[in-house]
């Protein structure tokens, strides 16, 4: 944890990986080497380039990774544009970890887990998936449904194919929105693929992706008999301070940066739909 609220520590980008045409994954180490701080899956960190801006990003690496942290970042604004132009060796500022985490050591423990992600929504889930893989004995079946616009837009495709798919006890279901040459997998949107696959309404579900996808996916899950309290998602609202003080990211009386970003669906239903 960064010692001071608002005062970041310095980090160095030690590897830049091009994931998709608009997503890059950055490996970040502290100036002395090693990780900037410890975190739990689902937590976030504020990254900044002084003079450009500061923003919250999910930490995509698993806490079980002892060497570095990773952030998968989609290019969509001024700061992310700048980050995308970075080379290795670039210093940035990092503070965190912020927010709550998926309850990997509590509610999720011992459960079968269903991960459903769309596009860059895989970023926060990747942390959990790799955490679960590292502590495989603590969890039941793991199934991953992941979709993107096209094959090129699937984040972490090599890791998915070369590691996740090959691991026993993990089923990976990939889909893309439109048919594409060289793609022999499933074609279609994530919610309909989820319906198609059909899952037993047991265990826990972790959903992350664009708001529309989340909405239809949860609908599909409920139709299969899942309860709201089995489903978790993460929210993304404008955050500035990261510590529940600047007054921006609240949904009702909950601060996304402090009480979130991970919300169980039944809890979310009790809050104003201001997100």
């Amino acid at each position, binding site marked *: 944890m960064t010692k001071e609220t608002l005062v970041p520590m310095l980090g160095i980008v030690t590897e830049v990986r091009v994931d998709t045409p608009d997503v890059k994954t950055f490996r970040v180490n502290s100036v002395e080497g090693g990780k900037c701080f410890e975190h739990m899956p689902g937590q976030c960190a504020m990254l900044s380039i002084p003079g450009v801006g500061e923003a919250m990003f999910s930490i995509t690496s698993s806490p079980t990774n002892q060497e570095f942290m990773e952030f998968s970042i989609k290019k969509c604004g001024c700061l992310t544009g700048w980050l995308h132009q970075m080379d290795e060796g670039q210093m940035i500022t990092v503070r965190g970890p912020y927010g709550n985490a998926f309850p990997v050591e509590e509610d999720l423990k011992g459960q079968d887990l269903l991960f459903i992600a769309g596009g860059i929504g895989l970023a926060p889930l990747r942390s959990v998936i790799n955490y679960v893989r590292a502590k495989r004995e603590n969890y039941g079946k793991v199934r991953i449904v992941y979709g993107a616009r096209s094959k090129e837009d699937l984040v972490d495709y090599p890791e998915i194919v070369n590691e996740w798919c090959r691991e026993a006890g993990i089923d990976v279901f990939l889909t893309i929105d439109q048919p594409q040459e060289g793609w022999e997998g499933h074609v279609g949107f994530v919610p309909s693929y989820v319906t198609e696959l059909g899952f037993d309404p047991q265990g826990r579900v972790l959903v992350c992706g664009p708001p529309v996808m989340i909405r239809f996916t949860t609908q599909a899950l409920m139709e299969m008999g899942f309860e709201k309290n089995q489903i978790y998602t993460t929210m993304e609202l404008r955050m500035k301070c990261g510590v529940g*003080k600047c007054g921006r990211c609240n949904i009702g009386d909950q601060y996304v940066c402090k009480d979130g970003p991970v919300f169980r669906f039944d809890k979310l239903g009790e809050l104003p739909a201001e997100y």
Partner: protein
Amino acid sequence: MRKFAAEKLEQLLSGISMPVYAPVEDGGTVIYGRYEPGMRLRLDKLGTDRTPKEVLFPQWESLMHFKMEGKKIQLTEEERANEDYVLFGVRACDMQAIRVLDRVFLSDPVDTYYAARREHGTIVGLACDAPGKNCFCKNFGVDPAQPDADVVLWPAGDEYFCEAYTDKGHALLNGWDTLEADECAVTAIKEEIGKKYDALPFAHLNLNGFDGEHLMEKFESPQWKKLSMACLGCGSCTFSCPTCQCYDIRDYDTGNGIQRYRCWDSCMYSDFTLMAHGANRPTQLERYRQRFMHKLVYFPSRNEGMYSCVGCGRCIEKCPMNLHIVKVIRALGEGEKE
């Protein structure tokens, strides 16, 4: 209980070796400014134009500096406040507001910029001998006769009664030349204040239902549309509010480096929650609702029922369009309390 002659007040203030922030005039407005002998104190002014919160949480403050060289970044933190000072003449409502700010900034993780200032200050409260027509502090559990400060002063004609409640308060008061006084006199004053307060138009509002329990009901009230219609989306209510503490963190390129500073922000501003792909409070209705829901519902829901409105009445005076929290309470509440 101690007392001193009112005419000695300025002398006492001048005698304090620390900087003193007190209500003084600034071009027709009253602010908590650095008091210098000879300045005109405005202890008569209720709802000062600018609030004591600025002493603890200034409109802008530098947080840190960055130097960029090639791919390297150098970070220098701004020094935290380290000078003791006295914040003088704080009304009960504004004092309560500081407690609200404490809840925000001193809760985990502590905001060290605020904490340092808070720690170095000794606050002298001032009882309201004449609450005004815009006052409605008691609704929020504030006693205008008893500010929750380190030292409290009660004006009583040509003298002030005073009492210290904390170590900091005692330390300050011990340095003052005061006389022993009778507790009863103050009790009478307090009673008098209570009576005056009870006669005020907004003295007793009905706050039933302003709690976490009724969050969704209040949120979904159809009244918001009408209430917010005339709102300009300016920040005059937020910036003159003693509890509003929303802030923004910004970088300024000085040409020699980057200064990261914090400045007040307002949830009434259209760009407050704006992100690359839109805002989650897109119209003034949502923004207006956010402000009042926060003060009357969200904050108490998180803070054991403590409202983040203190009934100081400033928004009643400052809103260019005469929209204010009392109108909201009345529209959303369940009528006047008998």
